[in-house]
């Protein structure tokens, strides 16, 4: 079956603009995760959804970042008033849910803020 998909694959935006990144998880996966991977760095946890709920938003770097998930499926990560330090690859992962461990990652969205 299809894996996790993310769109766009690449996004170049000007500083100060808003961007939306989309994640389509594997069908039936109730848990969804967003991570940020800066060049040559590890993955930084941003937010976790169980269904449509995000019980812990403490990983979001600032209030310019927000995320939502609708219908227990598609998720959108929004970055408002983008800054150059937001440039990174944003990765989404999904899993069957609590108690099931394996996360399946999408290919990521490479965001470049000029």
């Amino acid at each position, binding site marked *: 079956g299809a894996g996790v998909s993310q769109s766009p694959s690449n996004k170049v935006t000007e500083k100060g603009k808003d961007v939306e990144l989309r994640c389509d998880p594997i069908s039936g996966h109730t848990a969804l995760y967003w991570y940020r991977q800066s060049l040559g760095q*590890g993955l930084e*946890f941003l937010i976790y959804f169980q269904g449509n709920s995000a019980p812990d938003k403490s990983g979001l770097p600032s209030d310019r970042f927000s995320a939502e998930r609708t219908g227990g499926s598609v998720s959108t990560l929004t970055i408002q008033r983008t800054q150059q330090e937001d440039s990174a690859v944003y990765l989404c992962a999904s899993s069957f849910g609590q108690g099931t461990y394996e996360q399946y990652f999408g290919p990521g969205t490479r965001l470049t803020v000029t």
Partner: protein
Amino acid sequence: QQQVKQSPQSLIVQKGGISIINCAYENTAFDYFPWYQQFPGKGPALLIAIRPDVSEKKEGRFTISFNKSAKQFSLHIMDSQPGDSATYFCAASNSGFNKFYFGSGTKLNVKP
């Protein structure tokens, strides 16, 4: 504070050799420790994982060694192959699996 520390940053191994990557953690509440493999332009993929109730887990050429008292775990790749050349990440999570902490990654280059 970095929750999971990984070393080395890069590693060069000859084909057929053993690759060893180490990770250390601080939070004793962690109870799930996966390793991920990432090729350029791709998302990470789960390689192997361990729970702290065992000291070792082996899957094919890949072995995790876990030392609970030292709060350390390591990945051993036996008979390393050029196809193993990738970036490897260790990670840790608590039993809720609602947050994962990743190491900074190790870029492995296996020379033919």
